[in-house]
């Protein structure tokens, strides 16, 4: 049971997805609306299963023992030594939880707002969950790659089909796809190259064998092949241009998963594959990575500041926030082989990982919140907003908490991640860290000035927005109506997490810390 | 004598071949083609391949050239004498062909072919026959099937009514 748990988590969504395709309406003699309702509720019910299992994983994970647990390792393609190798450790565990959790919320929310091509939507959403989970549990490079690509396809469709026509969804979808693919084909070549030097596709094995350690050229090539693939996904400047388009075009739940989980795939890949397998090459190029991270932070924040489209703004803020992850990882990589920096580097990594999780929660919530207002006003233009605090107090409250989390306000989850990243990075790459801090200031600027002020403060002008919609009935209204029940159900768990982790980040941090201390001290001991 | 005959046939063959590709009137091209075939039959005789020379006449002149002339005649309305003979790339192609000739000529004269002149077998035809039913039985059968299929195919394609 324990070693098939990961398989079940990964493939339950696939089963669910396939189930949505069955002609239930015909079998159960339902009309179209009834069938759609069944599909929606069924999908949500099925998605609860991986969430529950993820919690089981978390509770069953022996933290004292550390390392990979719930492992399954059976041959898949014997001829080339590809194995069906899955396992979780302290790094992947929270991310799996995050994936399953956001999926449930996304499905729950979408069940209310998605009205066209329902069957396809829920099919693709569940498929997407499988792809993402699969990436987090894979410990074999080929398996990893397969899930990596599999996740690409449903997201492409989510953006392309349910995007708003004015956001050029088809263009955005294909851009998203091609960017990721362009990175990943080179990654595939690097994967094969690893196989030829080590004879294995196993991530753990390969990390032990350290391929290409003797060749600067080859290790550099392989490193960059992997790194660029992941940097595109993160996305790091200058590979980020697909992200604003994709985010803007995607439907709300799609954006949530895109920001909440898909971006983490890149960061996860760097932590799981690049760092352990190519430590020396990484160290060699660490400053470039740090620079990319810092540029992303500052650049993302500056561009955010210039946006008038709320969703686009949040999308750019993701570039900026994911920059922290790169900064942390880059700094840690720079510290490889320097014993005095072991603690600092572990701390930076902890911060980076923590940032991955909290960013997933907070940005996910932000995108939900954008969705909430968009469903009502059919606009995302900040110039048209203003004074919502009086009309939508509940909404304002949740938004504020989320925005402050994103900003890194102490007491909320985001604070810890930024703290650790900078705390670690200051020791190792002080100058870059200082520049990076600039990003925090800019973040404060766009969150407070752009979002809070333009949206919620000031005077509400009834003429700016032609009409409002009741999200539950679809009726036209003259006044905005505050959060509906389903929206509260969607948002509260996220907000609760932000607050909880803000106050008590230890459970998460401990998990990460075990992993990274072991990793970094392993390098130092070498 | 051999030299004289060779050059005679070579000049006939090449001259006629040039006429084949340059003559405006396609029917005349086809007739020049027949002359090429005869020239080559002569070459074959010089090379002691009498059987092949006769087959050359029989098949190339009797069948292929006839078919070509047939096709030319059946499509004769299109042979407008004012129409250009060549397509636009003719100059390029001519240059290419000349270059190709130079290259091929250099190659075939430079390569040390494993020349070992022996007497031509007297019973060549018997031997050919034995080869056709011996080691080359399968190609022989395939060739026969090929001819049948080509015939059926030609009928399928060119049949009058649908």
């Amino acid at each position, binding site marked *: 049971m324990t070693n098939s748990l990961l398989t079940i988590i990964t493939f339950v969504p696939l089963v669910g997805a396939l189930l949505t395709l069955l002609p239930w309406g015909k079998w159960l003699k339902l009309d179209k609306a009834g069938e759609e309702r069944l599909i929606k509720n069924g999908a949500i019910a099925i998605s609860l299963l991986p969430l529950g299992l993820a919690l089981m994983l978390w509770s069953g994970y022996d933290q004292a023992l550390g390392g990979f647990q719930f492992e399954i390792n059976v041959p898949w393609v014997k001829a080339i030594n590809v194995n069906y190798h899955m396992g979780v450790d302290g790094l992947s565990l929270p991310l799996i939880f995050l994936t399953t959790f956001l999926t449930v919320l996304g499905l729950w929310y979408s069940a209310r707002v998605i009205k066209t091509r329902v069957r396809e939507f829920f099919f693709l959403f569940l498929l997407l969950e499988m792809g993402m989970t699969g990436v987090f549990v894979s410990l074999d490079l080929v398996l990893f790659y397969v899930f990596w690509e599999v996740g690409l396809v449903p997201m492409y469709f989510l953006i392309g089909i349910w995007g708003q026509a004015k956001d050029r969804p088809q263009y955005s979808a294909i851009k998203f796809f091609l960017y990721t693919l362009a990175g990943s084909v080179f990654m595939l070549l690097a994967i094969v190259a690893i196989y030829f030097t080590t004879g294995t596709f196993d991530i753990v094995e390969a990390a032990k064998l350290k391929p290409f350690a003797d060749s600067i050229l080859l290790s550099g090539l392989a490193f960059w092949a992997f790194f660029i693939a992941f940097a595109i996904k993160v996305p790091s400047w200058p590979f980020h241009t697909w992200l604003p388009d994709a985010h803007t075009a995607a439907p709300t739940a799609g954006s949530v998963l895109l920001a909440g989980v898909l971006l983490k795939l890149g960061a996860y890949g760097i932590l799981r594959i690049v760092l352990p397998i190519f430590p020396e090459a990484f160290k060699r190029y660490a400053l470039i990575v740090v620079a990319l991270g810092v540029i992303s932070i500052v650049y993302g924040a500056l561009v955010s500041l210039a946006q008038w489209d709320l969703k686009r703004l949040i999308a750019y803020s993701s570039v900026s926030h994911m920059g922290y992850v790169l900064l942390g990882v880059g700094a840690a990589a720079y510290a490889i082989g320097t014993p005095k920096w072991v603690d600092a580097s572990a701390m930076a990594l902890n911060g980076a990982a923590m940032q991955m999780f909290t960013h997933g929660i907070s940005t996910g919530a932000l995108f939900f919140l954008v969705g909430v207002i968009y469903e009502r006003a059919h606009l995302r233009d900040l110039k048209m907003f203003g004074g919502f605090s009086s009309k939508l107090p509940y909404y304002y409250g949740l938004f504020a908490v989320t925005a402050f989390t994103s900003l890194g306000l102490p007491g909320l989850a985001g604070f810890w991640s930024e703290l650790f990243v900078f705390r670690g990075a200051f020791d190792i790459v002080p100058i870059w860290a200082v520049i990076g801090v600039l990003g925090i200031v800019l973040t404060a600027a766009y969150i407070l000035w752009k979002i809070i002020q333009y949206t919620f403060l000031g005077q509400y002008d009834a003429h700016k927005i032609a009409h409002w919609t009741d999200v539950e009935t679809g009726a036209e209204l003259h006044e905005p109506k505050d959060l509906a029940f389903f929206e509260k159900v969607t948002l509260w768990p996220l907000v609760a997490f932000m607050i909880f982790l803000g106050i008590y980040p230890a459970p998460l941090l401990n998990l990460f810390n075990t992993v990274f201390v072991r990793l970094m001290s392993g390098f130092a001991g070498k | 004598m051999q030299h004289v005959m060779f050059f005679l046939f070579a000049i006939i063959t090449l001259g006629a071949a040039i006429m084949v590709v340059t003559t405006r009137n396609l029917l005349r091209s086809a007739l020049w083609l027949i002359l090429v075939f005869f020239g080559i039959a002569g070459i074959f005789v010089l090379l002691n*391949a009498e059987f092949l020379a006769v087959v050359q006449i029989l098949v190339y002149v009797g069948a292929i050239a006839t078919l070509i002339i047939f096709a030319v005649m059946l499509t004769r309305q299109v042979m407008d004498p004012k129409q250009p003979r060549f397509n636009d790339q003719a100059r390029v192609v001519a240059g290419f062909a000349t270059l190709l000739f130079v290259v091929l000529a250099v190659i075939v004269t430079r390569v040390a072919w494993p020349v070992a002149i022996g*007497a031509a077998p007297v019973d060549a035809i018997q031997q050919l026959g034995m080869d056709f039913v011996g080691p080359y039985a399968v190609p022989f059968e395939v060739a026969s099937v090929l001819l049948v299929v080509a015939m059926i195919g030609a009928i399928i394609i060119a049949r009058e009514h649908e």
Partner: protein
Amino acid sequence: MVPLWYYLVLAAALFCIGAFGALARKNAVGVLMGVELMLNAVNINLVAFWRYTTAAQLTGQLFAVFVITVAAAEAAVGLALFIAIYRQRNTVNVEEFDTMKG
């Protein structure tokens, strides 16, 4: 005997003339005639090689016979095609076959 390379150069020349015809001719029948010249050049090669290198074995002649056979089959199908197309559109000029572009 005439040296081998006489024949080979003759064949090469014939081959190139044929290639020119095949590539430069506008009329499809003209192209086919070019191809026939090329095949004949090959036959000269085959027979000359046979005579000059391995006269005891008739491989070259056999090969040439097969080439001639195939040429006949090819011509039959090809000319049937010309006629079929000519019936459709009154032309056999290769350049006018431009229904499909891209």
